[in-house]
């Protein structure tokens, strides 16, 4: 956002807005929220947006602190699965196998070796008032969740899956379709955490093939059959556990 919409003198927001330091999205939000309280404001929301790197890596500490304090903030993680501002480097939310400029696939290593950090449950483990996952491929679900978060009297967190055409090697007009397919193939999920309980918002009877999703993106094109099997099995284990432990609607 600081790179595109916030370049003096072209400032694009018609509401109050500020760009924080890279690690400081949550802490700056907390300060704004505390000042709003000190000023006695009644009708307002304090909302922040950070990337997957800003959320799960460098800003995790500040976010954890804000949730721990139960600061009244809405925090949105815009997850495009890598550091895109700096030109596609691996973050802890980059999925297994993905090619980035710091995980280049070659003869010895086939892309990212780690699996995507489980941010949703890490946030839920703080006993947060409200947390949800979403995808820009399911817009109404996302809108509902933001509306819900805005009513919470405490911290709320929404983890939004959002493809990056340049970083993933897809066409711009495929963004929406990919963001939908990731949910339909079970590689991402729509869920909520509220009142100490997890709920799966979407529980497909059958998944679309993982391979179809992966093969559409050049970041996964180098993967071998065995990698795809590994990704599929990991998906199934995750869903088996979610279906067993979480509420379904």
């Amino acid at each position, binding site marked *: 956002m600081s790179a595109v919409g916030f370049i003096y003198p072209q400032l694009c927001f018609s509401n*109050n807005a500020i760009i924080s330091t890279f690690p*400081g999205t949550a*802490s700056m939000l907390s300060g704004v929220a505390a000042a709003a309280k000190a000023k006695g404001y009644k009708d307002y929301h304090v909302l922040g947006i950070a990337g997957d790197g800003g959320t799960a890596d460098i800003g995790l500490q500040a976010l954890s602190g804000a949730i721990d304090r139960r600061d009244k903030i809405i925090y949105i993680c815009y997850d495009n699965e890598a550091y895109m501002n700096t030109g596609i480097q691996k973050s802890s939310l980059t999925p297994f196998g993905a090619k980035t400029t710091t995980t280049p696939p070659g003869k010895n290593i086939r892309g990212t070796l780690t699996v995507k950090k489980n941010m949703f449950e890490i946030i839920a483990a703080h006993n947060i008032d409200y947390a949800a996952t979403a995808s820009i491929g399911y817009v109404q679900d996302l809108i509902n969740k933001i509306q819900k978060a805005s009513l919470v009297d405490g911290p709320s967190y929404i983890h939004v899956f959002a493809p990056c055409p340049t970083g993933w090697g897809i066409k711009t007009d495929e963004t929406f379709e990919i963001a939908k397919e990731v949910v339909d193939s079970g590689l991402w999920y729509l869920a909520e955490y509220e009142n100490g309980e997890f709920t799966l918002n979407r529980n497909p009877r059958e998944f679309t093939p993982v391979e179809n999703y992966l093969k559409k993106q050049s970041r996964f094109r180098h993967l071998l059959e065995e990698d795809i099997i590994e990704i599929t099995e990991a998906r199934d284990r995750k869903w088996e556990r979610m279906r067993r432990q979480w509420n379904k609607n």
Partner: protein
Amino acid sequence: MKAIRKFISGDDAVAEAVRLASPDFIAAYPITPQTVVVERLSEMVEDGSLVSEFMHVESEHSALSACMGASAMGVRTFTATSSQGLLYMAECLPYASGGRFPIVMMNGNRSVALPWSIYGDHRDSLSQLDSGWIQIYVEDAQESLDMTIQAFAIAENAEVLTPVMINLDGFLLTHTYELVEIPEKDIVGSWLAPVDNPYAMNFDNPRNMGFSSQPSDNTEFKYQQHKAVEDSRKIILETEKSFEQIFGRSYGGLAAGFMCDDAEFIIITLGSVTGTCRTVVRELRKEGIKAGLIKIRFMRPFPTDEIIGLTTNAKAIAVLDRDISFGYEGTVFTNVNSALARTHNDILKMNYIAGLGGRDIPKESIREIFKELEEGLTTRPDKAVKFLNLNVETDEKYSDSEDNSTQHHREGVLLWS
């Protein structure tokens, strides 16, 4: 009710000042020797004597980041830190000054690791001298209290809108108990105008802040920031004057001279060592030596004109630095030297590195410095930087360079290397 007098530490004095200034928002993270400030403020919030949003952050980076968020909303903000904590928030320091957030921060001066040391020197704050903050250094607990209150007035002045860092020597000042006059809250309340930041976020005229700039604009933003700090000199002096009118105390502007009018040998200090130096200057005066002292109170804006004016009759000056910029010299010396280069190129300028990591600076050593200044007028040492009371062998040449023992040391070092 009138002002009361209490026997309190430097940390306590800062906390009292914060209570009197009553910031709407405080965020801080504990670190020795600042911790007492955080604890006192927490107690004040608990007992209701301070009404403030007190945020227990998980780090110093978050402390200053949160202060910026609150300050962007136009409320009075305070934080406090020291050493490793100051360095941990380093990213936020220029962010706060560049964003023109009038935050006040207390820093308990402490050595920076490695090696670890909880004791005092000035390397922490001086390493952040270029971060765009106004930097104040105080000498005792009363000055700590008075300047913390004034810091809010200076920072929040619409012409300044620059964060202020007030520095107290770790332990020597933060933990030393003195009798301090604590003014009445109402009187401070009526002296210190409420924050009125015309650029803060508001609903009627929404603000976009923290933006990027292009090469075509960046210099102009930096220039305005520089100008604000330069122009703060006037506000600093006005603030001191009006504070004195109400509270009866003042400390001498950006740099305070002591017996400098006719002084031929002047020592220049920062912080709590000033007291010891003042005693020595008095003694030397009794002995007929024209000694003087300059206490630098603000490192930014730097008191260039004050130092030039106070050294009019000086033949030699010594800057006592509780820091070293490795590979060069003490940072205070660099600044003083640059100021004096305009008018005083001919005088002897020496730099004594002392009091690192809490080492004592005894009176005798300060007397010795004055002696060396006098001798230096004839020996004209070619090296300005000298570590005071160094306990390690050195091959460095000082004024006694022809001395056999130095020669011996040099050979010793060569043997080892």
